[in-house]
């Protein structure tokens, strides 16, 4: 039997959805505990069940122990992952998880400079401090650096590529591709 939803809950969820959609249009995710006054356990596990039609674009994503909401109408899952990660105060966590994702997905190393751009917007001072010695932290031992010949810094995860490969790809991204029109 489909679960019945009381009208009060549906109203709360619809209001929440409006806020989440507005945030997603602005390229932001919303922390669940900032828009949901109840406990996380009370929040529906899925907004795709009966009685909640019209909310099936609202999706959840977890990062660094927090749950975030976004609207699939305005944001892809991949971007939401990055945006949720960007909310973390631990910059090394942001860097490491992003680098691991890029190294596994494409594969390619990640430019350090890209963390100053949306959705991360890390300041250069904070970025430099976080990058220096990142692989000394046992949690991030796989995060290695490589330098292109123009001085651009890249990071890669040794779980997904070796240094030689990363160096070649970094050089291509930073220098080679620019002269390979």
């Amino acid at each position: 039997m489909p679960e019945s939803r009381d009208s009060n809950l549906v109203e709360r969820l619809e209001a929440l959805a409006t806020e989440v959609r507005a945030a997603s249009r602005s390229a932001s995710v919303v922390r669940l505990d900032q828009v949901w006054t109840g406990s996380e356990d009370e929040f529906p596990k899925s907004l795709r069940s009966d009685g909640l039609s019209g909310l099936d674009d609202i999706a959840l994503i977890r990062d660094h122990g927090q749950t975030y909401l976004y609207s699939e109408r305005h944001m892809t899952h991949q971007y939401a992952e990055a945006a949720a990660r960007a909310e973390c105060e631990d910059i090394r966590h942001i860097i490491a998880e992003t680098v691991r994702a890029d190294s596994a997905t494409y594969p390619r190393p990640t430019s350090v400079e890209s963390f100053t751009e949306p959705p991360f917007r890390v300041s250069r001072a904070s970025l430099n401090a976080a990058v220096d010695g990142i692989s000394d932290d046992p949690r991030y031992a796989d995060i290695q650096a490589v330098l292109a010949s123009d001085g651009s810094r890249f990071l890669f995860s040794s779980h997904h590529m070796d240094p030689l490969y990363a160096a070649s790809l970094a050089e291509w991204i930073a220098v080679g591709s620019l002269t390979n029109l």
Partner: protein
Amino acid sequence: MPTYGGWTGKTLRVNLSSGKISTEDTIAKYKDYLGGKGVGYRVLWDEVPAGTKGFDEANKIIMGVGPLTGTSAPSSGRTSITTIFPTSYPWELVAAGHMGGHWGAELKYAGWDNVIIEGKSEKPVYIAIVDSKVEIRDASHLWGNGIYRATASICQEMGPETQVAAIGQAGENLVRLSVVNNAYSHSAGGVGAVFGSKKLKAVAVRGTGAVRIAADKQEWKKLTRYALSIMGANNNNVVPSTRQPWAEYFAPMSRWTARKGLYWGAADPPVETGECLPEDLNRIGMRTMKATYDMGPLAEKYTVRMGGCSSCPIRCHSHVEVPQMEEKYGLSRYAASTCTRLTAGTSGFIESYPEGRNGLAAVEANIVAEHMLDDYGIWDNYHQLSRDFNYICRSGLAKSRLSADEYKSIPWEKREKGDPSFLQDIYRRIAFREGELGSVLGEGSGLMAKLWNFPEAYFNDMRVDLWKMGHPRHHANEEVGQTGVLVNMNYNANIMCHSHRNFITCGLPTNVLQTLGEKLWGPGAVDAPRNYTPMNEAKARFAVWSLLRDELHDSLTLCNWMYPLASSPLKSRNYEGDNAIESKLYSLVTGDKKDVAELDLVAERIFNLHRALTVRDMNTSDMRSKHDTIPDYVFDDPQVGFGGGPEGRRTPPSGPPPKPFTPGTARMDRADMEVGKDMYYETLGWDKKTGSPTRATLEKLGLKDVADKLAQMRLLPA
């Protein structure tokens, strides 16, 4: 006889020796070759004797478009100019330059499909086409002028809507590295001096008609909207270059550069490129902010807008306004171009600039170079000209080969300081063949190497980046492994084939590309970037597809820097494009229904005719060892995969040079490439031993007459 849409049905023939102007029936003579390069090859086969050289009177110029040009088929504003190329070395062989702009569409509006130019004029002339009225006019008042002034003068004579394809002083002076430009900055490389050899300054066209299409208009509108809906940005890159909320993927090298905070900064008011959702077809033209892609972030404030070619939504031509050009260099502050013609200033003539490649001096240098190339009408040959100059400087050859007086006359101090006005001196020397340096640089790499007795090392210097026959590598192993090598082997000049590259660098992750590639060519066609695996048949099919589609586009005529649409930006389609889009466009426009396999067969006919011409004019059927050569650096140079072009050279991080098939290297393996050639020839139905078309293949393609002629010349494989 059936009536077809798309074609006008008329081919113009102009004899500059006799002055005779005549009309031929395109459909009766050339329909099976479509247009563009296809018609060009057929004319050269039928009418130009074997062994004819580029500047010989017997050489012909075929300016051709196909049935799609002049319609609203997206990205159809191309013209192919086919001829015997004077830069092809040591044999001058068939090749084609192609240009965008608006000339091709105007030719169709005037009622013509092709212009065949033959003979040689005694004095400078230009061909004036106004609808069906064609004249050979005196051009002595234009001769000696650059392309800019020649274009403006002809427009004053014929009307402001005239489209002018002209040569500059470089073409007039038989500088082999020269172009024909239309709309000032849309270039066809390598053909300018052939025009010059015939004393032909320009071909100018004004058309007041329209192109009839066979399709029902609503059906046509539906198809063109569909084509637009699956198109990406420039080079059919289908993901943005930065992380954006609407996109699953991104790629830093993508030409989909539009984003929030990036502007056409010199527009009034500035125009934000913004987020361009793939479903928003009205914003396709905003996707590619090419000025910053080509010249770095500083170019943003100089960009007025993006422009482009007839019927193309992509707009990859940067229109910039750089005010200081007038006072500093005496050049117009306005410039427009794209790709190599907007980056020639930073490609090797000058080693480095204050503030680096993206600094102000570098941006100004690129604009200086653009004006010099486009007004003098010099062909940069995919930066090969710059790299050759760089080579003769760093090797000491410039100092040892030039007389002391000439060497002293060159403003080297400007080069050392990174002063862009150095380029004005060097390009002028080339355009006017001033001195030994000016003469030899414009001859092209092959002839220059002979005249100056370059050492063998030149041919394998990766910073020179030569492939063969005087022309450069163009998207070979460094991007597309064995497929790229096979593609680069085939032509007689700069290959200018982007089919393979557009697919591999579209920005999608490897696993997505592999799924798409498997559907098109079979499993194993696509490797991870710089992580190559041994050769297989799917890679051979990928190479053949790339080349056949290039021939098809240059004959239909469509832009090979956009098509094929093998991928798309739409997640709803799992990023799949439409491999049959060309055949759908062709069938609806012409009424000549062909499916994808049938149209690819026409492309195969055209490509085989190119091969037959090459066999004939090299007077050998042994294409495998004499023509389809691969430079040694592809196999031997440990930096392959680590080199970053003239400025960026980087040795691998540590350890011995990586072997082929090691992640990170783009080195190929000789034995593996021989297997590649075997598979490639087999896919095409060519003889494996020689790499030449067999009688069976030629006859299958309706080229029995070609087979008979080659047999008569003992050039058919046994």
